[in-house]
């Protein structure tokens, strides 16, 4: 065929590339000017903002909390989404599709509405707290809003659906015949899970886990609302630095740190997955 497919690529590529490169270079350049507050910046390029991010206790704590809640949310997401994905993928009836659409619908609905629901569930005079207090489990109304656990749960609302959908496609690549073979040879279900399913799903789990971790690191909405102005993760702090403190170059510095972290995780995941494929190839 004499169609020049590469010509088709050019306009779309230019559109994305110009927006990407211009917007990213501008804020990255801005991040190297000293922030004087209220939108004013210094005139010379230097590393003052970066030095501050990595020496100031507040920023360091924020970095640590971001990594911590993201890691916790990733682990919880994987632990919950794998059984769900497995059950759905192994279902032979049309129920599998129905369950899956339930996941998709809840994933598509904006996270703000879900967080709203969580706020209602944990409201002081809400149904849950009345139950907890009447049974004497707690004496004070319990709320997850403004706690790190709350942020972890918020992040899970953001990632669980994607976790299930990703792992669903992973489980689908594992032939049932392998499980049957293990069972015929007398392996118990937990053993079959440990020795057959887990190793085969491992590359997918690692890839999915890193994807979820990446999403958590960059998650803004759920972290901001459930952090309740008490727990700050990096994206929340970036937004506040601009909206409340009007420090553009400081926010740019924090955004650059976040961006580099996310890119590093991506590169790491690509390397890890390549290695695993390589190892599997050698073993087989």
């Amino acid at each position, binding site marked *: 065929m004499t169609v020049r*497919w*590469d010509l088709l690529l050019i306009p779309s590529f230019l559109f994305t590339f110009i927006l990407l490169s211009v917007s990213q270079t501008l804020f990255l350049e801005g991040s190297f000017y000293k922030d004087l507050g209220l939108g004013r910046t210094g005139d010379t390029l230097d590393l003052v903002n970066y030095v501050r991010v990595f020496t100031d206790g507040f920023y360091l704590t924020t970095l640590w909390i971001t990594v911590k809640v993201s890691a916790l949310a990733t682990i919880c997401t994987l632990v919950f989404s794998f059984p769900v994905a497995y059950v759905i993928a192994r279902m032979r009836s049309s129920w599998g599709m129905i369950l899956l659409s339930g996941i998709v619908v809840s994933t598509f609905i904006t996270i703000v509405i879900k967080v709203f629901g969580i706020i209602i569930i944990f409201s002081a005079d809400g149904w849950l707290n009345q139950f907890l207090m009447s049974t004497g489990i707690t004496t004070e109304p319990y709320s997850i809003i403004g706690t790190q656990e709350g942020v972890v749960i918020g992040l899970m609302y953001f990632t669980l659906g994607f976790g299930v959908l990703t792992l669903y496609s992973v489980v689908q690549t594992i032939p049932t015949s392998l499980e049957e073979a293990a069972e015929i040879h007398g392996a118990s279900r937990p053993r079959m899970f440990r020795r057959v399913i887990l190793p085969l799903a491992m590359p997918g789990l690692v890839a999915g886990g890193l994807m979820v971790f990446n999403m958590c690191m960059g998650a803004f909405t759920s972290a901001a609302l459930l952090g309740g102005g008490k727990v700050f993760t990096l994206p929340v702090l970036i937004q506040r630095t601009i909206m409340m403190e009007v420090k553009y170059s400081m926010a740019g510095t924090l955004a650059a740190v976040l961006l580099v972290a996310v890119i590093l995780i991506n590169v790491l995941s690509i390397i890890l997955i390549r290695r695993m494929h390589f190892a599997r190839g050698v073993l087989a």
Partner: protein
Amino acid sequence: MSAREDGLIAADAVRATPDTRAVAAGKAMRWRSRQAVNFWLKWVMVVLAYVFLHAPLIVVIGASFNGGGEYAAIEFPPASPSIEWYFEIPMQQFEALGLSFALASLASLSAVIIGVPAALGLVRSNLPGKTLIGVVFRSPLQIPAVVSGIAFLQMYYLVGDATGFFAQGSFIGLAIGHIFIAIPYVVGTVVAVLQRFDHRLEEAALSLGASPWRTFRRVTLPVIMPGVYAGALYAFMVSFGDVPLSIFLTAPGYVTYPVELFSALENDFDPSILASGTLVILFCLVVMIVVQRVVGLDALLKIGGTGKGR
């Protein structure tokens, strides 16, 4: 547990004498009860996950039907059922919903117009830097939306300084940002379909005398259409629900629905936003049902199950 032990259960069955048969039966029973525990554990996790995912939605829908006039509290389950809040939704929220709908429609349409040729080019051309070009097209997904938000805001400031047109807080400014984050979804889904495309279909059409354009329109396009629909749907939903990018690009009095809801939750709200939230949930449900009828959920999931939202 060792590999030997597994083998033993099987071996027991082979050289079974009356004695060993009893042992084997005991083992089998324990094995079966472990199976049962495993079965229930799995289902408990599944039920928990579904309750976890859907409880907030059900609470929002339920609480929206709680009446009680001026001093109404937000309550679930509703104490005095009524639909009064559906008539109290302020104009502001409808305007925000309208803006979100217009933005999401434009973003998904533009993402299709820009993304489909990009996907065709990515899969079918043999440019040297194809992998790198693919990375550029995927990057809006990888960059945290907050980062894109401040990057676009600063870009709009600078463009405004140079030209006198400040795009932040305008429809065009929001639209450019939303198109930027929507493109990767369409590119991703269409690339996935094209990679499985059977080229013999096109060769057959061409050898039977169809022009390249006719071949594309009558053969290629129908085959990639499910991918286009799936990508457009993902793009629409991501744009329709976006907060982190829009929060930087909206202006007071000109906000998208998720941003309106976000600031309401950060500050102060009345039950009317429960009602509008319920309408949004129902809208998403209807969209999903229509998509399932038109393309089938199966195709949708196979193509783009790993899309990334915000």
